[in-house]
C-alpha cells in the first residue's frame, strides 16, 4: 500500500470546506500509525480506500491537519496542502 502523500491527500479528499473539514475515502495508509505524518514522495492515489476518513484543518496558520481514521487521530502537517484546501474552498 502507498503512503499518504500530499498529492494523494488532495486528490482523494472530497467536500473540503473552510472550517475546514474534508471527508473522503483516502487510501489505507500505514504511515498513519505514527502520531505525526510528514509528506513524502509521489505514490499512486488512494490504494485500497478501505474506510472513510475525515480531515480537519485545525490550525491553518501552522498547516496542521487532524486526520480521523478508524478510532485514531493522526496529526499531519503540510502548509502547502492547507493552502490549496483554502483556495479550493473559496
Amino acid at each position, binding site marked *: 500500500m502507498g503512503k499518504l502523500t500530499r498529492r494523494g491527500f488532495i486528490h482523494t479528499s472530497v*467536500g473540503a470546506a473552510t472550517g475546514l*473539514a474534508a*471527508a473522503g475515502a483516502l487510501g489505507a495508509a500505514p504511515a498513519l500509525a505514527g502520531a505525526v505524518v510528514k509528506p513524502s514522495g509521489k505514490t499512486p492515489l488512494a490504494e485500497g480506500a478501505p*474506510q*472513510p*476518513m*475525515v480531515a*480537519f484543518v485545525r490550525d491553518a496558520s501552522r498547516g496542521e491537519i*487532524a486526520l*480521523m*481514521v*478508524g*478510532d*485514531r*487521530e493522526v496529526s499531519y502537517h503540510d502548509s502547502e496542502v492547507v493552502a490549496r484546501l483554502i483556495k479550493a474552498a473559496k
Partner: protein
Amino acid sequence: MSSHREAPGISKDPVADNTDTYAFVSPDAPDSVTIISNYVPLEAPFGGPNFFEFGDDVLYEIHIDNDADGVPEITYQFLFETRVANPNTFLYNTGQILSIGSANWNRKQFYSVTRVVNGQSRVLASGLACPPCNIGPASTPNYSELGRAGVHRLASGESVFAGQRLEGFYVDLGAIFDLGDLRPFQNLHIVPLPAAPGVNASQDFNVHSIALRIPKTMLTMDGSNPTNPASATSVIGVWAAASRRKAEVREIGNGMSHESGPWVQVSRLGNPLINEVIIPMGKKDYWNSQPAQNDSQFASYVAHPELAKLLPVLYPGVFPNLAGLTAARADLLAILLTGIPSGIIPGFQNYTGATQADQLRLNMAIPPASKPSPLGIIGGDLAGFPNGRRVFDDVVSIELRAIAGATYPLVATYTPDGAAGLLTDGLTSTATRYQSSFPYLATPASGYQTEPLH
C-alpha cells in the same frame, strides 16, 4: 434528576446521557457486586413507532478503580448493533413478540462486551441480544419472560443485561425545579403553599440499563475475596461514561453518516446529583468531558455548594445555622470525592486516598442489609449510599440533608438546624418498582398501559 438531562449539551443527546449509576453487593449473591448504568432519560413508554434503544454510535463504559488512584484499572465496554429485518414496514413489530428471537420483532439490538484490564482488551462476548421495549399486551404479552431472556451469563464469570427497565430513581422534579420547592415543607417556602405529599415525576417512565454482576474476586486489586471492612482492598470506585467519535459527517440526500476518530467522552456519572446540582451550568458539559481523576478542579463547588446558600433564602428562618456555615464542607468532600476515612463512622470506611474523583465508593466487605434503610448510612444502614448505591436508596433526601448540614458534625463541631435531618421531597421507595434478582430494576412500564401525564 440524578443526572437526567443535567447538562446543556448532553440533554440534546439522550442515548448517550448517563442518568444513574448503581453499585452494590448483590443481595441474592453476596459474593458478587452488581453495577448498573442507565441511559436515555424519561422514556415515555408509548413512544413508538421508533421505540427507545441504545446508540449504535456510542461507546458505553463502566469503570472500576481498585487501587485508589482515580484511574480505572478495569473497564467494561459495550457496543451495540441494530439489525432491521424488514426495512419496508414502519412497524417495530409485525406480530406478537413471544421470544427474544422472535421473527415478528423487526428491529433487534445486539451488543458486545469487552473487558479492559490495565490497558489489555479482551472481548468477552458478542452478539448478545437485548430484549425489546415493552409495547403492550398485544405485542409483548409476556414481557417478564423477554426480560429474563435478556440476562446472559458469560463464560468469564460475569452476568450481563442490556435493555429497557422501569425507572428506579424517584424524585419530585416538578417541585424541586420550581425554585427548590419541597412539597412537604412548602408552607415554609418563600412562596408558600399548603404542605403536600411529594409527586414522583419519574413514576411512569423507563430507562435503558446496562447491568453487570461481577464476582468480587474479579474486582479486588489482588484477586482476594474482601471480608475485612477496614481493609483498603475492600473498596472499589465505580463510575460510568459514554463516548462518541470525534468526527461525524452527514451526507446530503441519502441519510448516511460516517463517524471516525478517537472516542470522546460526552457523559459520565459516579455519585448521583453531582453534575445536576453541584456543578454550575457553564461547566456542566466540560465536567462531562473530564476524566474522574481530574475532579480536584471542581472541589470548590463541592466544598461550597450553591444549594447550601439557597436553602436559607428559600426557607426564611428555617436554616439559621446553615446560613452561618461558611467553612469548606469537608464532610461533602469526603462523601463525594475521596470516600469516608476510618474513625468517623464506627465499622465503616470507603476511603480511596487523597485523589479527588467522582466515584461511587463501595466497601465490598459490608454485607447486604437484612432490613435495608433507603436512607443508607444516615439511616444506620452501612450497606447503602454513600457506600455504593442501591436501586432503592433515597439519594435525593440523603443529599438534601447532607448539603443542609446534617453530616457536617462528622468532621467538625456544629449543630445542624432541626430541619436539616428532616429534609425530603416527600417520596419513598416502592418495592414494586424493583425486582429481587438481577438486574434488580423492574419490568418496564408498557406503552399500552401507561396513561399520558394530565
